[in-house]
């Protein structure tokens, strides 16, 4: 029966549908990537984030990845620009998506202190685009290689993108169902009053009630918006509220291109007809040979695994006993967007191997402000940094260093800052990994 279910599902998602929504998604996504990469470059962040700091926080399991020299960093960003343009134009699309996948993810893997949920989203889309034929029409490729031209694509290619967007919003909504967010209106109670200078609505931000209202509305919005985008009757209003929601949060918080990316990608929920209507205004290209391939078994299996992974992975935090917001074990890659106000102060002490004294570390010698801020409340990064300091000071002292300790105080959602772990703990004896970090104090 299961086999039957799978084969009929496979049949259903292989049915043909018009390519227009996919083509517009490709064009919009490519344009947004081009814009956000240029923005990143012009803000000088390539220098300040990837070239200036002496130390970078690699992802667990990726410390073998060689850190490129400044020239190669710029090459990566140039590759990113070229491939974004390629995706936008549908010009050598297969090559462009591959180049985009490699350059974007290579850059992301260099330093996890810059992790953002929307970067993770882009990483996932870059993976999906590798197998989605979004260049079969309304693309330069379709002009050059007439053989590939087709108006039709299998339905799954559009469904998978819709599924991914559903995951982003719905899980962001689920993440908001917690007592801090709903019962204490935290962290909005801290963040909103800081924007009392906003025109018209600003004065409302002084009231606690506003923080409660926004917390609950935000949760309801995230949970429900994809459903309202799904039905044609509610769609236009839902999209209108998406624009309002994202412009508003974009105005209030420093979240970069996130509002733009989400607003752009959500267009895919509009109907075939809408997309055909739009794209034909700019461009008419019909094709005689309506070729499209149904999904093969291997790819079908991969897609099913992908979906299962996307649904389960954000819930991995249940495997840990301690408070998620405190330890952040299972926090990343789970669509926990703007969910807490957390800050730490981390003073590291390195033993002096020549006598029994110890020396204070000035973090600004090795990290930029952003890196220091992130490291100061994330245990895995604290361990990585301690190990880096060990290597660093072995060179300075020219002698083995056996102990590095740190006094770390962390505040969460406005609480008084507390010791994160025993300040006498030798950090060099702790191992990073997926096991519960038992050495952390309870919140």
């Amino acid at each position: 029966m299961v086999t039957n279910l799978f084969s009929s599902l496979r049949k259903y998602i292989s049915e043909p549908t018009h390519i227009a929504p996919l083509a517009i998604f490709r064009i919009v996504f490519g344009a947004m990537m081009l814009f956000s990469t240029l923005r990143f470059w012009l803000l000088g962040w390539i220098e300040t984030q990837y070239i200036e700091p002496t130390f970078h926080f690699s992802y667990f399991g990726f410390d073998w990845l060689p850190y490129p020299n400044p020239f190669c960093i710029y090459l990566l960003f140039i590759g990113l620009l070229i491939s974004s343009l390629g995706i936008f134009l549908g010009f050598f699309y297969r090559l462009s998506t591959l180049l985009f996948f490699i350059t974007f993810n290579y850059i992301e893997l260099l330093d996890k202190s810059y992790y953002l949920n929307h970067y993770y989203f882009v990483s996932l889309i870059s993976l999906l685009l590798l197998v989605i034929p979004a260049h079969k029409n309304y693309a330069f490729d379709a002009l050059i290689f007439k053989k590939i031209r087709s108006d039709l694509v299998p339905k799954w290619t559009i469904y998978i993108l819709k599924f991914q967007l559903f995951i982003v919003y719905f899980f962001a909504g689920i993440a908001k169902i917690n007592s801090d967010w709903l019962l204490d209106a935290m962290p909005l109670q801290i963040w909103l009053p800081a924007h009392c200078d906003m025109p018209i609505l600003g004065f409302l931000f002084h009231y606690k009630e506003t923080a409660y209202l926004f917390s609950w509305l935000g949760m309801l919005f995230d949970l429900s918006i994809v459903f309202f985008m799904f039905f044609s009757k509610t769609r236009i209003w839902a999209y209108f509220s998406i624009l309002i929601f994202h412009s508003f949060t974009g105005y209030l918080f420093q979240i970069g291109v996130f509002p733009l990316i989400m607003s752009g990608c959500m267009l895919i929920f509009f109907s075939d007809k809408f997309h055909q209507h739009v794209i034909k205004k700019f461009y008419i290209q019909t094709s005689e040979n309506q070729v499209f391939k149904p999904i093969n078994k291997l790819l079908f299996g991969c897609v099913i695994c992908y979906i299962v992974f996307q649904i389960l992975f954000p819930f991995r935090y249940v495997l840990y006993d301690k408070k998620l917001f405190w330890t952040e074990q299972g926090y990343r890659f789970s669509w926990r967007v703007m969910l807490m106000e957390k800050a730490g102060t981390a003073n590291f002490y390195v033993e002096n191997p020549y006598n029994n004294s110890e020396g204070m570390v000035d973090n600004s010698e090795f990290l930029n402000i952003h890196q220091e801020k992130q490291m100061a409340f994330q245990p895995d990064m604290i361990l990585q940094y301690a190990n880096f300091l060990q290597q660093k000071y072995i060179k300075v002292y020219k002698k083995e260093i056996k102990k590095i300790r740190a006094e770390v105080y962390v505040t969460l959602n406005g609480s008084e800052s507390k010791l994160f772990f025993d300040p006498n703990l030798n950090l060099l004896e702790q191992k990073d990994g997926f096991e519960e970090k038992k050495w952390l104090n309870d919140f």
Partner: protein
Amino acid sequence: MKSYFNVVFAFSVLLFISCCTKKEDTTKPEETNISKLFVENQYDNIIIPAFADLKSNTDVLAIRINNFANNPTQSSLDSAQIAYENAAIAFQYVAPLNFGPSEDGITGLKENVNTFPVNTTDIETFITNNNFSLNDFRRECRGLGAIDYLLHTITGSDAAVLAKYGAGSDNRKNYLKAVANKIKSQVDAANDKWVAYRTTFTSDLSTNASSSITKLFNAMLIAHEDIKNYKLALPLGLRAGQTSTQPTQVEAYYSGISMKLIEHNIKAVENVWQCKSKSGTKGKGFDEKLLVINKKDLIANIQNQFNAIYSAYQKVETGRFSDLIANNATNSTALLSNVSALTRFIKSDLSSALGLTISYTSNDGD
């Protein structure tokens, strides 16, 4: 579609009403006023007086140093030394204000006027070559640190200083005058820019990375970290990687007023925190911002820690800090621990409670 909006709307209204009905400790709209008062008071009570005071002291310093160079006597040296001490003290009060108009496009007034320790070998080379144009970026060869070196000796002997300004010392006199005049012109420029900055500073009430309050907060935090890292830990040999103490790294090594300057620097940070002028006028500081959001514990924690720092300071022996480091640094080390203990309250708790970003040019968040 309609049902969606009805549900959301009805829910919002319900929630709003339910929240409004229990108005126990509603945050008052007074907060707009306090944001405005905060920037105005900081500007009027702290910033402008600090720069005016520094300006008048560096003006006097320039005059007295020119007098001394033109007529080096014990009495002109005495008055130049006093003027130096006053200017160095006055400088401590602008140390937590090293942003905005204090910057000249390349760096801040702190780096331009108070880089320490100075490079005495290179100063002597400049003097030997009679090169006093100061048209380079050798900040470790000028500023208050250079005056400290040129007007004092480590033994405290004025005779030894005067001996260097005898016959054939024109080069040294030229260099000394140039350094003092450069300090004066740099302080004047910063002061002028601050005076013209009132509207800009007091009209920005937001807490963005580039707002007045965020910049002031960060500058205050950096001044605090400077005391900890460079004025105390470094000479005490307590920075990671140091294998011994480095007494010559103290601020004002030659005049020996290092500890006095540290005390004023701590006071300056506290004044910004409380928005308290040197004459004692209290304005709306960070403490009052916390009061509005009912963070009394944090106010107490910070104030208690300042008091603990002053108690620790009282226990530090009199005399040159550099000598204390060499002989008995127990109490100075205790002072450092107390200064360190303040960091978390400012760096994490205060910034988090007020929703401030710890950087000027921030990365995106999400």
